[in-house]
């Protein structure tokens, strides 16, 4: 039997990132993936003939450019195309557009409020300042405040130094920012509902919180930390769908000599004497490896794949209470023609980006109230886009793929499991909302894939369908993610590591957890991570 140096459980983007770095550092790495394809939640799948779906994650911005370069992803086919615009439709038949051009953006806001249009400058400045503080932390292992090892102490000092770059006034503001709700934060700058709703959406996407929940200002930051070629906060599509990210990663991995085994679901991680020795697949095959890295979320890893007896009780307890509440669903639609949105007029750049129908923070929050009560939102928040307008390669000319990210959608319906009838009713809610703004929309639908947390968990393996592999609340960030004392990619089992979004810095197609995990593994192996770039400077 062949023994690998490292075995990666799960071929999601983070698993593949870790795999690539380890393989390049000279290890012999095997990736095992339960599905017949790799990609995890970053896939492009032809679910109906002639249409590629980005059926889970759908936009690209957070993926770290350092990783793209290190792993030569552009050479392996990754290309990101920036949005050209976006819009929030208002109930009175108007809309709030977002334009890339600075002055056009301001004039658009000024249609609603001149004051808000200018307040946006100060808002963007303040958020950017926070981004600049947080960005360098993404590609560093979070220090353990109670670790007392030289590295922890020096990293804590680094944090303090970064914080010290703020003026005293900004430090106080930063403490506020980190603990505020996005709604309260926006109230300090803006007076117009639709403008606040447009800006608040980044505070809730993927999160089991409403815009009025404290901590959502930070979530907003999490979505702003991305960039498209140096344009911070910009979003774009991966050409060929989100699968392009993981396809490029797997090509890069294979090119450097790695091995991928698909249709290979891991049933158990094998341990002996507190050490991981390999895995057993669902079909009974045993695979041996010097170390095992789990791309699965922390709950799936430690509550399903590892014997509880092999773990300390308090660790298992914390993992059980790690919050992975799913809050979102996805409706992927194949269209035989481009839908019309009469409010926008013809050929509007607004369609070449993200579109939304939630024009007030209150509507967004009420949608969350439904989720808290265990129902999908009757008036959901949609992050809707038609990537084929910018990337016609995903289907044939004239036809379109539409991606609708839907919030809120609970992991269970009023405490019970989802049924197919629930799923269909959920889809109807979404289609109904779109149809209100796009006459004849239903008639254009060729095929539709509806994904509630149930489907997301079943296919991708994300517990409760949580797209971030764990909520982004303070108790689950930095040195708390996923478990205090185990926030440095290592687990209580020697040789078993974590590299998924359950670890710092968290979810989104970012790749940073995978990269940081690889760095820690190589450190343990006392191997050089020579091919790993340092985080880009924030100057």
């Amino acid at each position, binding site marked *: 039997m062949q023994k690998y140096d490292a075995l990666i459980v799960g071929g999601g983007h983070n698993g593949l990132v870790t795999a690539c770095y380890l393989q390049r550092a000279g290890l012999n790495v095997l990736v095992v993936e339960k599905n017949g394809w790799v990609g995890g939640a970053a896939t492009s799948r032809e679910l109906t003939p002639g249409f590629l779906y980005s059926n889970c994650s759908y936009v690209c911005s957070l993926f770290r450019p350092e990783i793209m370069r290190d792993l030569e992803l552009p050479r392996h086919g990754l290309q990101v195309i920036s949005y050209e615009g976006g819009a929030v439709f208002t109930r009175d038949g108007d809309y709030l557009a977002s334009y890339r051009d600075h002055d056009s953006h301001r004039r658009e806001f000024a249609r609603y409020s001149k004051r808000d249009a200018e307040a946006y400058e100060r808002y963007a400045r303040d958020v950017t300042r926070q981004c600049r503080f947080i960005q360098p932390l993404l590609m560093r292992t979070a220090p353990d405040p109670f670790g007392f090892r030289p590295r922890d102490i020096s990293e804590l000092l680094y944090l303090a130094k970064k914080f010290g770059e703020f003026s005293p006034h900004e430090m106080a503001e930063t403490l506020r920012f980190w603990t505020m709700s996005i709604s309260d934060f926006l109230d300090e700058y803006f007076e117009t509902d639709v403008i606040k709703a447009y800006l608040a959406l980044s505070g809730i996407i993927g999160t089991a919180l409403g815009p009025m929940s404290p901590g959502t200002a930070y979530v907003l930051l999490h979505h702003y930390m991305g960039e498209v070629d140096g344009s911070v906060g910009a979003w774009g599509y991966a050409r060929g769908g989100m699968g392009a990210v993981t396809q490029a990663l797997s090509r890069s991995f294979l090119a450097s000599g790695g091995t991928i085994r698909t249709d290979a679901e891991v049933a158990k991680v094998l341990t002996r004497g507190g050490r991981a020795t390999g895995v057993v697949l669902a079909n009974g095959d045993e695979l041996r490896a010097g170390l095992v890295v789990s791309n699965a979320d922390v709950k799936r890893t430690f509550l399903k794949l590892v014997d509880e007896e092999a773990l300390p009780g308090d660790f298992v307890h914390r993992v059980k209470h790690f919050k992975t509440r799913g809050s979102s669903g996805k409706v992927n639609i194949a269209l035989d023609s481009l839908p019309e949105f009469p409010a926008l007029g013809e050929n509007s750049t607004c369609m070449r980006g993200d579109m939304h129908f939630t024009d007030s923070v209150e509507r967004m929050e009420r949608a969350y109230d439904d989720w808290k009560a265990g129902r999908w939102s009757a008036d959901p928040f949609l992050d809707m886009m038609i990537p084929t307008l910018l990337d016609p390669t995903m289907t044939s000319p004239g036809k379109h793929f539409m991606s609708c990210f839907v919030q809120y959608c609970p992991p269970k319906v009023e405490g019970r499991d989802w049924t197919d009838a629930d799923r269909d009713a959920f889809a109807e809610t979404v289609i109904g909302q779109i149809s209100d703004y796009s006459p004849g929309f239903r008639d254009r639908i060729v095929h539709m894939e509806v994904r509630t947390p149930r489907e997301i968990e079943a296919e991708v393996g994300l517990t409760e369908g949580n797209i971030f592999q764990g909520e982004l609340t303070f108790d689950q960030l930095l040195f708390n993610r996923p478990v205090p*004392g185990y926030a440095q990619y290592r687990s209580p089992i020697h040789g078993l590591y974590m590299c998924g979004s359950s670890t710092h810095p968290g979810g989104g197609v970012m790749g940073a957890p995978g990269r940081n995990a690889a760095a820690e593994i190589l450190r343990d192996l006392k191997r050089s991570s020579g091919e790993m770039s340092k985080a880009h400077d924030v100057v």
Partner: protein
Amino acid sequence: MTSFDAIVIGAGHNGLAAATRLAKGGRKVLVLEAANAPGGATRGREFAPGFRSAGLAHLVNRLDADVARDIGLDLAGGALLPTTVLDGSGKAVTLHGAYGESIDGVSADEAAAFAALRKKLVFQAGILKRFLRRPPPQIGAISLGDLSTLAGAGLGLLRKGRGEGRDFLRMLLMNVADVADEYLADDRLKGLLAFDATLGIHLGPRSPTSLLGLYYRLTGEAAGKTGGQVVPAGGMASIAPAFVRAAEKAGVTIRCSAPVGRILADRGRASGVVMRDGTEITAPVVVSAIHPQTTFLHLVDPAESGTGFVRSVKNVRSHGNVAKLDLALDRVPDFAGPEARNGRIVLVCSMEQVETAFNPAKYGEFSPDPVMEITLPSLADPSLAPSGGCTLSALVQYAPYRLKAGWEAGKPAFLKIVLDTLERHAPGISRSIVAADLMTPVDIEAEYNLPGGHWHHGELQADQLLVNRPTGAASGYATPIEGLYLASAGAHPGGGISGLPGWNAARHILSGGKP
């Protein structure tokens, strides 16, 4: 005319605490109170013929021991009051001692789980408590005192090992619901924690950071016991007079019906006040023990403040969510639970009830199924009701200050809901009502000059605490205007009858600004 070293605006308990401390420190102090009697929110009032209410608060659970000693209010001997939780099933949970040192009405397992959680929270609150009795650390100018507090907190954490330290940093900003769910199973107990964490705060139990409300409660103590609650001998009505007596004994001059019209300031230096009648009183130190927003938006000429500062003061969130109900009853109501009459009653079924009650408050609507805490004040202080009669005091949540429909229309509807709720828990109470006085946050604002009707003078949420209370530039009692200090609940550490904001402010002034 006598001249004063310091003028304190507002004779609430914090104003009086500050004045007393300043006077004991050798300053000649004048307290100016707009109302016709001192006491602020602890001021009693007759709400129906023969029936009196002792003010907004109906319990003492965080009066600082030093402050108490200073004003000569002896709570040490007071018996700790129990809490009875009623969910309408008739099966009460009773918490005895200081926040449930022992507990009745739940299974043994549940009682043990509660004890474990209580122990952890009391320990963690103990770490936070170190920061309450001194000005918040001034960012950019961290002093030795700040460092020693921080170091003390760090060592305090480590005393119990890394695990507890890590747990503290994990839990600090959590919501109360997840914590309660992790430890407890009984809906009534969880409901109680949810209620106590959110009372007076615009958060639901599932809102991140809502655990802070519970920590805040557990940083308080009564009769030397963390988390304890008492009614002083003589009832709540004895509190205001005690503060007044202490102030007067220390030589403080208190003038009532003396509304301040303006705080005198020129080029960043305060020099006294102008009364609403035009009289000028000068003093080198002006201590504002009223709401920071009243202070800076109404009393100080905006030209004397920076635009950014005014902006931040305006941004202080300070809209109350709690209504106060005073009932005049012709007999003692009949609530379930052996200890119901002797202490605090909390009407709550579950955390979900609190969360659901919170939802409408976000949109300017009151809770159709509110949660509340109740005491029967006249049982401890018979002077509050005619003989045979009884008073009931309730704090009812959520009743948002900005009611979309307006409180004029909303109040009768809300009162009916509240009374119906009481009737469910104490059958027959409706027929015994002589008079009902519901004060919405709007009424509280008018009665006590409390902008927004918020008894904490500003939301007690993570982003409005410590260095951001009430706002960054005025968080250390000193303000951008030299000689003008803040000393109300709007200053660190916040509201409740602790006396600490006033006390800390006075100590800060006496120390010459050195923390």
